[in-house]
């Protein structure tokens, strides 16, 4: 029942949070602390890389939902990428994060974020 959390930032407004292990009732509070720090200041968007996440329960889902709401409040959004089968199944069951695009690869999401950034710089909404 362990969770390893790594954060990085390759874009000015975006923090990438990579999860390894399991996101359950006991490990979710650690993620919530990380999210609070990750979405501070000029950061408006979060990317959760779930390539190494083997399991998620409702506690983890709620944390991701709250993160999405926080990001939206700052004019950004939250994304999940690289879902593994068990996690994908749970997302499918709850139709998790309605209105959120789930990307299948970091490259795909990267391209999307670049196009979003371009729109902001060109003044589009």
């Amino acid at each position, binding site marked *: 029942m362990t969770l390893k959390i790594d954060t990085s930032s390759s874009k000015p407004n975006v923090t990438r949070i990579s999860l390894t292990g399991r996101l359950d009732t*006991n490990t979710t509070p650690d993620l919530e602390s990380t999210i609070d720090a990750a979405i501070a200041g000029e950061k408006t968007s979060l990317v959760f890389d779930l390539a190494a996440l083997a399991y998620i329960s409702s506690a983890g889902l*709620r944390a991701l939902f709250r993160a999405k709401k926080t990001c939206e409040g700052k004019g950004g959004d939250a994304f999940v990428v690289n879902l593994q089968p068990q996690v994908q199944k749970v997302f499918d069951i*709850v139709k998790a994060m309605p209105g959120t695009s789930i990307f299948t690869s970091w490259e795909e999401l990267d391209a999307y974020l670049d196009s979003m950034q371009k729109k902001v710089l060109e003044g589009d909404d």
Partner: protein
Amino acid sequence: MKRTISVPNRTEELARLHTELVEFLEWGGMGTEFAEDAFLVTEEIFVNIVSHGYEDDDEHLVEIGLSLEDGLFTMEFRDDARAFDPLAASPPDPDAVSSGAGGLGIHLIRSLSDRVSYERREGRNILTVERRFEE
């Protein structure tokens, strides 16, 4: 095959629950996906009991009866918390989900089970979940 697990009402016990449940199902020839689905149901039910059931700070034991036979896997959760029927909760809506309100866990439990039933008997809540499988 059958087993009964007795667990104190603390979320820290989930690790031990996982070990015992996975061991039981592996012995019964079930695969990893089936075991992880079963554990997700277990976590949702157990955390619900621990969070909502007790008004004191005493230790209470939650009993989980496991049964695997004739293509049917059954888990029976027995606790002596106050009377609470989790199945009476309404389905989740997107705002409720993000605000942390109930319903999300029950939705997962129902989706991963073929049958879910609740009864109150002799001062205990008894929540039974069943899942059929091909032998």
